[in-house]
């Protein structure tokens, strides 16, 4: 086990360094921060004497109508109850999350294909330590970006007299755990398939499936989507990061903090389970292209 962790940490350091040299990581962060900026500015412009009114700003009118249409007016009210930061965080997290997880899937497939993992496996590295390195990289850079985002949003809150409250902190933590689960799924998709393209297709397919199931139970669109997903949802929800996200936030809303932390534990355990499954798969399949 020591060898494995050691190898994972050595390779992970290089992966982090490689990401820090890659323009993609910085561009993704800049895009995330710019989205935050525009959303916060739009929110500030949507305030009148009676409070937040999304009809006052074209960007927020589009957002408000879309969210209300898909998830209902209650969802919109709860989302902006403390201010814009919950919504802003969701949106601005996406570019960096997608960059990190897609680059993992892409690079894993490519490197396996050209024999890089095999080369390392001649040394004190196995497939598990190799994918653990990707995971460590994703987690570390996610933490880094979240810190940057918190600093930026704190500055915005200070400048505009906005409130960065407990709801935002709960969201920050649960999104982190949700990302952990999704990163492990990207690794599972990578080890199950034989190339970057098929891994990407599988990974995107898994995310879309989870999203459809979530939409079936979380949107106000009834009928077809719900009846389609009600059969799948019972099974898929057990392993869906989005399901646990919704459950965690419901617990917070109901004032049940203990339940919230238990759900985070479950999410961490599921991440571990997916990593373990990846370990089994790569052990059986081997590291050769």
């Amino acid at each position: 086990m020591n060898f494995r962790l050691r190898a994972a940490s050595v390779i992970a350091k290089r992966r982090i360094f490689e990401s820090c040299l890659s323009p993609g990581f910085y561009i993704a962060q800049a895009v995330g921060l710019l989205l935050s900026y525009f959303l916060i500015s739009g929110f500030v412009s949507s305030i009148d004497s009676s409070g937040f009114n999304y009809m006052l700003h074209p960007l927020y009118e589009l957002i408000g109508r879309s969210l209300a249409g898909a998830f209902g007016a209650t969802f919109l009210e709860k989302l902006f109850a403390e201010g814009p930061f919950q919504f802003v965080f969701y949106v601005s997290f996406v570019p960096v999350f997608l960059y990190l997880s897609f680059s993992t899937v892409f690079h894993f497939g490519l490197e396996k294909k050209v024999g890089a993992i095999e080369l390392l496996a001649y040394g004190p590295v196995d497939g598990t330590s190799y994918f653990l390195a990707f995971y460590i990289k994703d987690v570390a850079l996610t933490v880094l970006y979240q810190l940057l985002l918190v600093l930026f949003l704190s500055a915005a809150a200070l400048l505009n007299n906005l409130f960065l409250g407990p709801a935002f902190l709960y969201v920050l933590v649960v999104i982190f755990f949700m990302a952990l689960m999704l990163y492990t799924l990207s690794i599972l998709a990578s080890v199950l398939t034989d190339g970057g393209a098929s891994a990407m297709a599988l990974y995107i397919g898994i995310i879309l499936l989870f999203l459809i199931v979530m939409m079936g139970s979380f949107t106000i669109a009834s009928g077809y989507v719900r009846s389609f997903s009600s059969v799948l949802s019972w099974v898929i929800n057990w392993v869906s990061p989005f399901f646990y996200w919704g459950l965690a936030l419901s617990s917070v809303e109901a004032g049940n903090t203990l339940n919230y932390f238990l759900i985070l534990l479950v999410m961490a355990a599921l991440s571990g389970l997916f990593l373990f499954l990846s370990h089994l798969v790569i052990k059986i399949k081997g590291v050769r292209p």
Partner: protein
Amino acid sequence: MKGLFILFFIFISIVPVVADVPVRQEQLIYSIMAFNGKDYSGTFCGENSDTIYLIADQDNFITARKTLVYYWPITGDWKTDTSALNYPFEGTLELTEKGRESRIINPERYTFYNIKGEYELNWEVATGDEAEKAWQHYQGLIEQYWQATSQYQQAKTTFDMMMNELAKKITEMRNSGIDVTELVEKLKALKSPEAPQPPDDYIVPPSPVQSAFILNLPRGEYNIRFIDGDDAVLEGSEKRVVVFEKRRADGIGFEVIPGDKWTRPVESKSPSSVLYVDGTTNLYLRPFFQDEFNDLFYQKMVKNDARGNPSLMNWVRIQQVPGARIELTGNNHTSEVLLEEPFYVEQTKGSALGYKIVPFDPEGVHKDRDPSLIAFRVPVNRERSLIKIKLLDKNGLNLASSSRQVRVIIKSRWQPLLFLLCLLPLLAMAVVRIIRSRKYSL
């Protein structure tokens, strides 16, 4: 030829009108009078819907009838045309709960009403003979009131006649130089009859006694179907019944009335939520109790074809909080306690449009008028950027989930700096690339 053209244009102008008349379909529906947490509201469940939603442990009334149903595009909902067709079915309702034997529910005669009290919520339901009694009692009160009114009218007429006669006599006698002191005393002594007060026993008086199936069920899912007089199941009458209960009760919400848009209040229902304002006007708050229900279930209980989110809970306003006080804490951490006060909306005099909200003065300028609103006035301005609010009950105790913040938005001149911060990662990228390329050249 000209005539043909005229006919053609008349025809094409008629066709859209004719085409826009909603299509009425004959349907078997369940009419529902459901308790929604604060009062009774009516809706119906037609053939397009397979589920009825009701609140648990409350009396709800449903009937089966045949009527015309149509879609009204202007409001975007389904409506019934009972004036054209309204055929109530006679029979029983079979209710089945999963894993249990079904039971038969017979229609009952009922009425419901709300009795006056400190709180608004004093609903009573009477069934059978009690319903008749309640209705008759109310009818009796109304009858008494009308009789008293009639007597009053007569007494008033007599009084007015006597007043006129006396006044006429006094005038004549005065003109004749006769002493009218006695008559004047007699005139002054005359008392105008008092108008009778309408019965105020009820907030909502009893409805006329009707017959319906009364469903008062614990939380769960059920199935119903209508059995007609021939013991046959009425085709299309099978429905699912979802009975739900509130998750939390006695939450506190605020109706927020801005000083410049007093006819368009908003509601702050989420506990610990923040009210962002631009600081241009004061706020008038009216606190209310609220209960928490499933969003989808509640919306569909109120209106069966409504939409809602099945995974979210929604706070529903129930009734005002009586005797409350608001504790305000400002930037400088000093607190003050506000009482609920009446206010009057005065229109701006002259040709300018607008109004202002002023304290209600019942003895002065607003005599013989009613206040426009009764609320807590929260002074807001740009200097007071943060106000924390807590609601205290009449005993001075903090009411749970009543805390709110009011924040005045600041449009900072440093906003462009925030934009530049967004580009910081790109700057970092450039620095990293430069350092790295120097290393390559070593």
